[in-house]
């Protein structure tokens, strides 16, 4: 789906989309660290076709990415949530218009240590109890009396990330509200390290990181009232993994799409979204989303072509 109110890029005289033509130039991508592996995978695959186009992928977090994006410093912003009102305003103020593409799905995965035998399924309320600001929960038995008296050590993404925003929104109830005495990192892999190394550890991050580390970690099933559901490609695509499944986005800048190398990259990304998602171990779009994306692409092409 295209972002509200933004223009699709004006058509260029040249036949920008044709793969045969060798392109050159820089494409600056920045933003969500969750989406970064996806964009990086796209960049790597794209490089096989267009070796002279230099795609760089920064990892500033969704918020940091939009900050740069709306400041005109980047061509494409990765986001693990939709752009927010303030960011829309910031972009508008600088005259930056953009498109929005949903490129993959993510299932925010709550993980515990491999040897954690007790926490197989947690309710949203239990998670909220752990993560609310000022929470005094320091031990598992404070969550459920059946749980052992094991110290609870929390790990999670830093405040600059879309993952943090999304998690606090759906679990705690208000975006950005979280207890602060946990080990935050902009880098989700640090969270992996942390939980994998701590018996009473609990953390959350994107599904990819869990898949990559399934041998070291255990994913917790989530009960949002309708029974325990574990994260998987299946549950994320069919929407039963609630409330932690979410779509992932890229926001190409309209002005940049006038540059053939940027347009080529975005077209490549959209056209090969399934392969890219699978390669980067993300959850591909479901058929419905796929249809929307195809529609958006066609619209973009039409705009570019007409």
């Amino acid at each position, binding site marked *: 789906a295209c972002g509200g109110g933004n223009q699709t890029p004006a058509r260029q005289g040249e036949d920008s989309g044709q793969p045969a033509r060798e392109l050159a130039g820089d494409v600056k991508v920045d933003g969500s660290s969750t989406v970064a592996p996806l964009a990086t995978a796209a960049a790597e695959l794209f490089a096989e076709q267009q070796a002279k186009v230099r795609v760089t992928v*920064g990892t*500033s*977090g969704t*918020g*940091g990415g939009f*900050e*740069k994006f709306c400041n005109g410093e980047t061509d494409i912003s990765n986001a693990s949530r939709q752009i927010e009102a303030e960011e829309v305003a910031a972009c508008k103020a600088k005259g930056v218009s953009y498109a929005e593409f949903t490129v993959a799905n993510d299932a925010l995965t709550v993980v515990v240590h491999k040897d954690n035998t007790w926490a197989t399924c947690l309710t949203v309320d239990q998670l909220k109890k752990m993560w609310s*600001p000022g929470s005094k929960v320091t031990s598992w038995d404070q969550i459920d009396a059946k749980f052992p008296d094991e110290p609870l*050590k929390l790990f999670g993404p*830093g*405040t*600059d990330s879309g993952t943090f925003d999304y998690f606090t929104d759906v679990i705690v109830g*208000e*975006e*950005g*509200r*979280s207890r*602060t*005495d*946990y*080990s*935050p*990192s*902009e880098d989700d892999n*640090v969270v992996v*390290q*942390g939980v*994998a*190394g*701590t018996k009473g*550890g609990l953390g959350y991050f994107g599904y990819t990181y869990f898949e990559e580390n399934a041998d070291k970690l255990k994913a917790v099933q989530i009960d949002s009232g309708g029974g325990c559901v574990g994260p998987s490609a299946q549950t994320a695509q069919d929407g039963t993994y609630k409330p932690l499944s979410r779509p992932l986005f890229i926001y190409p800048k309209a002005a940049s799409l006038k540059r053939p190398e940027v347009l080529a990259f975005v077209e490549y990304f959209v056209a090969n979204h399934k392969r890219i998602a699978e390669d980067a171990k993300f959850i591909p779009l479901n058929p419905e989303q796929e249809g929307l994306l195809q529609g958006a692409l066609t619209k973009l092409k039409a705009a570019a072509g007409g």
Partner: protein
Amino acid sequence: MSATGGTTPSPTGSPGPLGRARTRYGENAVRVVLVAAALVSVATTVGIVVSLVPPTVEFFEAVSPVEFFTGTEWAPLFEPAAYGVLPLVGATLLITLIAVVVAIPLGLGAALYLSEYAHARTRGVFKPVLEVLAGVPTVVYGFFALRFVTPALQAYLPPGLQPDIFNALAAGLVMGVMIVPTVASLSEDAMAAVPGGLRDGAYALGSSTRLVAVRVVVPAALSGIVASFVLAVSRAIGETMIVAIASGNKPALSLNPLDAMQTMTGFIAQAGSGDLPTGSLDYKTIFAVGALLFLITLVMNVISARLVRRYREVYE
């Protein structure tokens, strides 16, 4: 420029007038270039101050200094935000303390050995080897702390004393080793600067090498040795990558070195690499913490400069 002499011998036999002083433009130009080069360092300090002070002032317009300096919770990037810097300062001091406890005995011992016992050849080999320790990139130390030292600690410490995966202890230990060369090299220099005459004097009175080392060399080199400690401590306080990688990024006011914690430098690296929106209060926190760090190291350095100067006065 006047003619240089030598052409018209004076009637008295003088080989001619000495000629007037010339203005040597080249010499003056050189001087200007040199002064400019020296001033780059001043410009650097000015740049640091200029980049730290305004955001810091703005920060303190929004956050009360009382909260900053006395608050015990550090969560500037959360809702609701908390701006008590003590957990960061505490972690910095704790990790520095661990590092110093490692580095001072090791460094001083190694320096004494090299200066008083080792043959010139041994010294020629081991001093550069120690200096390699100082040249290893700190990323490498951080990696080593996280991937080798922490697992080793987890394997060998008793169950009641299990460190977190990220912990101050491993970071401090490794940082200690990193600053051993600073202590060893500078102390050894200070010891080497103790006049040989003092040693001869002590040996001639029937001292053993140990007594010469402990009773004569160390006291005589003391201010130089202390200055090396101060420099090592400054280095430890300012070290970033080891803590960013190995000590965790969890601000915690804790004295338990087995816990994860965040230092001042760790916070700056974390917040800075997250690329906070310019001009936001969050962004200014980086500068406030940076300014505090700058001040702390400045004070340490002024102390060390004093010590070094006093040390110089002893024999000159």
